[in-house]
């Protein structure tokens, strides 16, 4: 597991990666089977009808899980480096979603889905290139303006500030965009679907999963292989020692916020494409779930946060597939509670010192 705070990089990364991929696929298959078995009892479908539904839901779970995972990475990185729960991170994601749909809407206008593949690639790529730096820089500016002056203040101060920033972002979005849902344009044609075992899987879902995976691998490589990544790991492990070794604290922390913001922006774009709407209070709920993912995976642990995101996606999806979507938030909260009670270091985290 790549933890921000663990110095060792995997000895044979490819072998580990393959083993890890195998486990992930096994988990996904298991989930589909579990859903398939559970569905008939709850929904009255025959077991033959339930199979495509189970596949469909698994794909849904993966795409929502990818969104949570991308957001969770930002939480976990910031916590790993400066031990701050960045409450505003969910709202950074929300602003990213707004930016992305403004960009896409601006280029597409009112036209319908894009079935011209090169144009689609340019459009999505452009949206990523547009929103990721903007949101990353927004996140860095917030750090520079309000978190940095409080870096040595009592812990309560930056936490409260983060809550304040979260409210500012949310309410600026409210003032600018108004309340209620802002519709995002339909970019992927609905007819783009692949038939798997009787279930039709949209190309969009596959794209979301692939994009999230690419970004996560990119982040892993960045943190594990580059000089800046090493600086981040060193800072997470021991800020003072790292600074004595010549690691620029401010630069490293800014970099962390930049990366977190960029990933959140990508998550925002994906959200807009997937759900077709954006709202100013979007960040609060998603943020809470993403934070739960980060805690579940062991806060400060990059791989853990990504896996946690998918696990939360699966849990939420399981509840809604069986008709209990109203309780999905409750379920996620119970997960958070249980993890904190029984395994506060998370599934993959090392026990951290209990500094008050």
């Amino acid at each position, binding site marked *: 597991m790549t933890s921000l705070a663990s110095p060792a990089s995997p000895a044979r990364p490819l072998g580990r990666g393959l083993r890890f991929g195998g486990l992930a696929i096994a988990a996904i298959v298991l989930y589909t089977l579990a859903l398939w078995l559970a569905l008939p009892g709850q929904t009255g479908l025959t077991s033959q009808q339930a199979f495509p539904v189970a596949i469909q839901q698994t794909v849904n779970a993966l795409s929502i899980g990818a969104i949570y995972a991308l957001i969770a990475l930002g939480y976990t990185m910031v916590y790993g480096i400066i031990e701050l729960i960045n409450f505003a991170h969910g709202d950074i994601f929300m602003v990213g979603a707004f930016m992305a749909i403004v960009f896409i809407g601006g280029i597409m206008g009112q036209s319908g889905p894009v079935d011209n593949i090169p144009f689609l690639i340019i459009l999505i790529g452009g949206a990523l290139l547009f929103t990721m730096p903007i949101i990353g820089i927004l996140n860095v500016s917030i750090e520079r303006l309000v978190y940095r002056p409080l870096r040595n203040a009592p812990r309560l101060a930056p936490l409260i500030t983060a809550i304040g920033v979260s409210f500012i972002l949310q309410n600026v979005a409210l003032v600018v965009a108004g309340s209620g849902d802002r519709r995002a344009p339909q970019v992927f044609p609905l007819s783009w679907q692949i038939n798997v075992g009787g279930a039709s899987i949209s190309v969009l879902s596959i794209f979301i999963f692939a994009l999230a995976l690419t970004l996560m691998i990119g982040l892993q490589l960045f943190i594990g292989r580059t000089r800046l990544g090493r600086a981040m790991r060193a800072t997470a492990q021991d800020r003072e020692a790292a600074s004595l070794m010549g690691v620029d604290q401010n630069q490293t922390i800014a970099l962390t916020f930049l990366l977190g913001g960029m990933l959140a922006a990508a998550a925002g774009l994906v959200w807009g494409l997937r759900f077709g709407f954006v709202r100013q209070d979007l960040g609060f709920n998603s943020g809470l779930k993403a934070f739960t993912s980060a805690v579940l995976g062991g806060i400060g642990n990059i791989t853990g946060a990504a896996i946690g995101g998918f696990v939360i996606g699966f849990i939420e999806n399981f509840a809604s597939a069986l008709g209990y979507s109203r309780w999905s938030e409750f379920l996620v909260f119970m997960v958070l*509670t249980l993890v904190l*009670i029984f395994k506060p270091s998370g599934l993959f985290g090392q026990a951290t010192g209990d500094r008050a």
Partner: protein
Amino acid sequence: MTAPPQTSTSGPRQSGLRATLADLRNASDRHRSLTIVVAMVITTVLMYILPAIPPLSIVQGRGIWYDSFANAGVFVLLAMGLNVVIGMAGLLDLGYAAFFAIGAYAYAYSNSPFSGTDLPFIPMLFVGAAVAGIFGILLGAPTLRLRGDYLAIMTLGFGEIVPIVFLNIDKFTQGTNGIGGIYRPEPLPFLGAFSPNSPFNYFIVMVVIVTITMILLYRLQDSRIGRAWNAIREDELAAAANGINTVTTKLLAFSLGATTSGLAGVFNASKLTIVSPDQFLFTVSFTVLAMVILGGMGNIWGVAVGAFIVYNIQAVFLKSINGVLETIGVPDFTLPIVNLHVDLAKVPFVDYQFLLYGVALVLMMLLRPEGLFPNQRRRQELHIAEEFEGGEGVETAGGMGAAPGGGETGGTL
């Protein structure tokens, strides 16, 4: 409200007015409960008279003012309770509205056509508060063992979940509709029955509740427990080493905050006569947090005044400002370059309140973390970091956890 000061002045005797003031301070330090009662009586008399004379009487009628004051009292209670958690024990509780909701629903169950029971109001105040306190213990017991930030996120989640649960178990709570027709409290001697037309009863009851709560909280702050909270807030490890059971002590603060919140919930339910999940969203917790921060973490009367002011800004000032602007007749204008048409009388100021709170929170944390009416002790704590930073090159710069300079050698020898 006059302030019972935190420190007594000593030193060379001064003469005249100063000496009298110093004597007064010493006296109020020695007789704190009496001071609170006197201060509250003066405040109450002011709140009784002022709505009848011009500046206030223009804004809204007398009865409506008493109603506003009673509602403000709910937030004063909430803020004083949250102050125990944040200001005294130094724990961040972001789901404070959940306990408010629990108290309110507890009263709704015992006093409405929905449940068919009509229990007396005053005992129910304690019952509702106790139920909320028990939930506080249930939530706090597992989380308070962990480091502080986890409490923040757990309470945030809890605050989010409680309204959802009340919404979802509609068999027991009537979902979005909420529980309506809650019975009003029993008539008061001399003042008669509670009714929507005579908010004065609620006002008086609220004043009594706030006074008693304030006395209790001040006594608690000066007690062994209060000192234990101080110690934990300043250095948990040192407090534990000195024999304080940190988990129990923190749990006490947390559940005491919840209890106060539940008390406010019961009062609020009896006043509104309806409870529904949308009254207890995160915005309530956030508003109370802003009140505590603005008032001054750790300073009981400061927090109370902060809550009173913020509530009145929110519920009276922002609401009436449009009407006042319209009456005065502020001309609308167009901003030249951006070609933006501005009509101040039609700007929805009420919608901007949370933006204002957010900005206020951030600015306070950056510029004046001790709040508008600071607690001396808390102020020193919050400025310790600055002292370290400022004292670069002096001997203190080598202290623990102080700013690790600018990466390279920080000028130390």
